[in-house]
């Protein structure tokens, strides 16, 4: 295990009266894959969004590769960064969404190019080359000129992964990347993620795919009701959960897997 790439200290988040995250401590080693599992509403996605500041935490600190996200330390105080500064910090954190969120008015290639071109002001010719390579990597070299609505869900999600990778991020966050896909399309996305993990990308994956967690993750975290209930190596957490809540959740997940 390398040094921690992502460190979360005492993360708390409220939406109005709902206490979504109740103090989460969590760290992810560089080059490792960590899966967040747990029932819906347990705060997994919110935790992921705290990491890149899409939903800034109310309390606690998020560190990514030694940078404090969204805040500046001044003496004993933490001062929120400006929107521009937070935006700049997000360049090193790639994110893939459940509903893909490709830009519908751009082709697949333009989607992949959008980050480097608009954020880094990269050269157009170079970026086009980079985007082609990335589309090739996710197996969509021949789909560059297609608009998102001309692609299947699995293809759209792979374009979305390529788009995030185009910013050359240090970490990748996946927010239920296969939950909106038809079952037969899940594997093409998971296999791209497997390759990415094998190449040493630091990844946090919110997922319901227990098979993927078992096979690819270095670390599994079970969340429930805004806290991490249990975490550790997938063999330990998934095969031999210590807490009642984790056992219950995994039993239900296994049942629904069998039905599929």
């Amino acid at each position, binding site marked *: 295990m390398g040094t921690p790439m992502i460190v979360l200290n005492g993360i708390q988040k409220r939406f109005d009266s709902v206490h979504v995250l109740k103090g989460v401590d969590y760290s992810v080693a560089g080059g490792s894959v960590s899966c967040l599992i747990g029932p819906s509403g347990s705060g997994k996605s919110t935790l992921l969004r705290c990491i890149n500041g899409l939903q800034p935490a109310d309390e606690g600190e998020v560190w990514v590769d030694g940078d404090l996200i969204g805040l500046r330390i001044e003496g004993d105080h933490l001062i929120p960064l400006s929107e521009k500064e937070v935006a700049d910090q997000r360049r090193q954190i790639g994110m893939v969404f459940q509903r893909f969120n490709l*830009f519908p008015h751009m082709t697949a290639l333009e989607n992949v190019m*959008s980050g480097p071109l608009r*954020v880094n002001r990269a050269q157009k010719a170079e970026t086009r080359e980079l985007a082609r390579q990335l589309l090739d990597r996710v197996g969509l070299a021949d789909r560059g000129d297609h608009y998102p609505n001309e692609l299947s869900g699995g293809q759209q999600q792979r374009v979305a992964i390529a788009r995030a990778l185009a910013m050359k991020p240090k970490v990748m966050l996946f927010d239920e990347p296969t939950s909106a896909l038809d079952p037969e399309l899940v594997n093409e996305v998971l296999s791209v993620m497997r390759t990415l993990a094998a190449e040493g990308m630091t990844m946090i994956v919110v997922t319901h795919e227990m098979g993927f967690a078992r096979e690819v993750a270095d670390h599994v975290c079970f969340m429930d009701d805004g806290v991490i209930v249990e975490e550790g190596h997938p063999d330990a957490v998934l095969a031999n959960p210590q807490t009642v809540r984790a056992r219950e959740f995994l039993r239900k997940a296994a049942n629904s897997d069998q039905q599929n």
Partner: protein
Amino acid sequence: MPSPPASWASSRAEASEPVSVTTGVRPRTRRPRKKSPWRYVAIAVILFMVLSLADVALTNPNFGWPVVGQYLFSAVILHGLLLTLELTAVVMIIGSVLGVLLAIMRTSSNEFVARGAWTYVWFFRGTPLLIQVIFWFNIAALFPEIELAVPFGPTLVGFDANALVTPWTAAVLALSLNEGAYMAEIVRGGLLGVDRGQYEAAQALGMRPNKVFRIIMPQAVRTIIPPTANQLVTTFKNTALVSVIGLADLLHSAQVVYALNYQTIPLLIVAAFWYLLLTSLLSYFQALLERKYSKGYAPRSRPQAKSEPAVPKEV
């Protein structure tokens, strides 16, 4: 958990019972449904009305068609039309810029800015445009001198209001400020209509707010175009209001002519002809624009007349 399947199964069985389905016994051919006799009644009534109107228009000399023909392309009318078009263009440009600014202000996290924009829209949409036109024309009565000054401090520059606010400036001011309020609502609706995930995706790539806006705006434009085109048509027609402050627009030009020759109806027909022609052209360009901005979206189904049911009814 209750167990619904049992009741579902029974109700489905009942529902399917009365329909007898035979497969491949005898081929059934389709033919169009018989048209309702009322259809012909409706056609007859409408034809009658059209013919009556044509008869009246052609035989009643008060329509003054020769006068219409005489003035349709006359210099005074065409000048008026040109001024109306210029005014519409200027008002649309200023109004749109104002509308985008106000819409962005409405979404501002600064409550003061957001409320300011809301108040603006509330005021300019809530008072009649005609009053606004007359008001701006008479602004000199309120402020004889228009001065650029530090509040409660010294005056920097001063102008005579009567010299500054010509009918043209009053018309541009009144229509643009009003237009801005309507455009603000249209733009705001468009921005709100873009999926939340698009903002998040742009932000997650590390785009700063201005870059995020440039991802969102083209998507909002798609929903903004149809109401904006409507607004353009409305504004084009609303410019006729400036005839009350003596600006020589299309309507005022027609009025000037009929004040001299008393051919009121023919000249109103001339003006109406040009308004109608231009609004028709605008509608055509609207359709072109909408097609351009629907790039990347599934072709939207066009509203059609009800199609005939596929299964022939029992006769």
